[in-house]
């Protein structure tokens, strides 16, 4: 049985994570005048339409791309030695310390509470078109799954294969993959909540909402 209180206490002891901001692609990098210790924010708004704090700008092929903080937190390091140089993809540019939000804490706890159906292999995963349609129309919680249901298309090495769900029946409470994203073997694809467990999950949500204090 999941001890929500204990998990919450553990998270409160170390309520942040360090996020490394990397160059998404090659280009010449120029940093914004931000010093370590500065507060930064991530994209916000209903559709994440408000950009986060701009940390640097990468230019390639006369296209400038702002590199924004992906979350709110405190800037702890900036690799200013790269100023004005051509950097390769994935080069670390800055590090921020981010304090966990309620949603993130909830996600961590739910991963312990839900039944996780994991990727059998590193691949891209898609819901089959009928399920995708339902999820787009009414959200993932509208989809009930059961053992043996053909639920995914697994795409790797340009080949596609159907993948059936195996596990207890229930609703898809959480989805952990994005379209066209490679998921490593063993990483969760969906979190399924058996109907009998719904009260427990609702309790988790309620406790996180009331007990977790978000920090700037």
């Amino acid at each position, binding site marked *: 049985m999941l001890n929500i209180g204990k998990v919450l206490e553990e998270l409160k002891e170390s309520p942040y994570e360090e996020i490394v901001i990397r160059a998404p*692609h*090659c280009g010449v990098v120029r940093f914004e005048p931000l010093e370590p210790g500065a507060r930064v924010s991530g994209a916000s708004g209903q559709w994440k339409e408000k950009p986060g704090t701009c940390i640097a700008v990468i230019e390639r*092929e006369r296209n400038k791309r702002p590199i924004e903080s992906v979350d709110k937190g405190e800037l702890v390091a900036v690799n200013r030695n790269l100023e004005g140089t051509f950097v390769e993809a994935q080069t670390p540019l800055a590090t921020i310390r981010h304090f966990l939000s309620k949603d993130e804490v909830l996600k961590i706890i739910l991963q312990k509470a839900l039944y996780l159906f994991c990727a059998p292999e590193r691949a891209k995963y898609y819901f089959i078109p009928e399920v995708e349609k339902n999820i787009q129309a009414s959200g993932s919680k509208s989809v009930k799954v059961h053992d043996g249901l053909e639920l995914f298309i697994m*795409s790797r090495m340009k080949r596609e294969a159907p993948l059936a769900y195996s596990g207890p029946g229930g609703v898809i409470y959480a989805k952990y993959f994005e379209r066209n994203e490679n998921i490593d073997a063993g990483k969760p694809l969906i979190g399924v909540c058996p109907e009998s467990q719904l009260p427990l999950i609702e309790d988790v949500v309620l406790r996180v909402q009331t007990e977790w204090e978000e920090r700037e």
Partner: protein
Amino acid sequence: MQNSSHKVLVANRGEIAIRIVQACRMLGLDFVCVYTAEDEQSGHVRLAKETGGEKSLYRVSSYHDANEILAVADAAQATAIHPGYGFFAEDFRFARRVTQRERGLIFIGPSWRVIRELGDKINTKRLARSLGVPTVPGSDKPIYDEMEAEEVARSLFEFQKQCGTEQPTVLIKASAGGGGMGIEEVYDIDLFRSVYRRIRNYALRQFKDEGVLIEQRIRDFNHLEVQIVSDRSGQNPVHFGTRNCSIQSTGLQKRVEVAPGFDPSSLPYSFDAAQVLTDITEHSLALAREVRYDNVGTWEWIVARNGRPFLMEVNTRIQVENGVSAAIARIRGKRGVNLIAEQIRIGLGEPLGYTQEDITFEGLGIEYRIIAEDPTNRFTPSSGRIERFSWKEEPWLSMHTHVPTDAAYDIPTEFDPNLALGIVWGENLSQAQERGMDFLDHLTLDGVDSAGAPLKTNVGFLREKTARILQF
């Protein structure tokens, strides 16, 4: 190479990237490679580090990102881009952008106009038909409408019934696909819609274009190719012979390629095989002359059991199997033909420097594609870790691979599962087959798949098929 001041950006990965680097070094040209995080262990990365100096290698986010490739080309002061095969090789927009941007570069491939004209299967069909070149019956434009697709399929079923075809079959192909990807057969018109929708959805996911082609499935055929080479003048195309690529996986992907395309000197055919080879070569050259083809390219043909050839498509790029044609070709009697080096040389503007009369052919070549896959389970790729990979060196064998032989290698799941190409040369068919078996017998490819089971490979399949090479 007369002008060796060029620097070539190799916009590809794996085995072909290695061969492009080797060809550059052979021509005395400088080069720069790119790689993604998944390819850190790949042989092309190691080769670039070892032979190219400090700034010969750049990590990029994707091989598909044109901005990224061009930004690296500028940073590395490259003067030309070699696209290899796949990725940007047949993308006329990319080729046009490379040549027309402010800091123009040379695209080592056909000019963008030629790629646009022939790179599209449908345009090729139209053009071929206008020249009287036979093409596979079916749609001559991409179809986006389900009703229209069904109507074309229905007419093809009807046509085959009228021809007395035993099992009429229609192929549905992703129009933007290639390399055998996104192709399915339909045997019954009542099942057409479900297969059509599957291919359409697949095409949208993989190629971002849901157009499909509907064609008659010609059963009992051989898949032949003609290798064309032509310099920038576009006026004097030559051919480097034919290849037979009929040994394929269930997904219609090539596994064994043989040059030349038929061997009437040692095998019986129910048609005049030598004449068919001559016909498809002449048709291919005619089309090349018509469009002023100006680099290397492959004309792909289907030859039915009665010897009737149909043009399928033109691949406006270097093919995986270029090496098997090179293995049997001689220029002015000399061995050691390297079609990638030829491609680079003429791509950079040098004249071809020889005519068809200077090209001769000797012996028979077999190319084996070594792949981690399970031939007993629809050739499903086997991803995992290769722990031991070795073969016996022979003077008649050339191996092209990006897989290290002195360290373990995790097969990336992001790309095609091809691991290596083994090209065997023999004086005749029986000697080539014998050597092919010898090569496969001494090949070691061991490892574990992602579930911890022994890695599956297609070596047994290749061994089994060797005896049937070039038999119709």
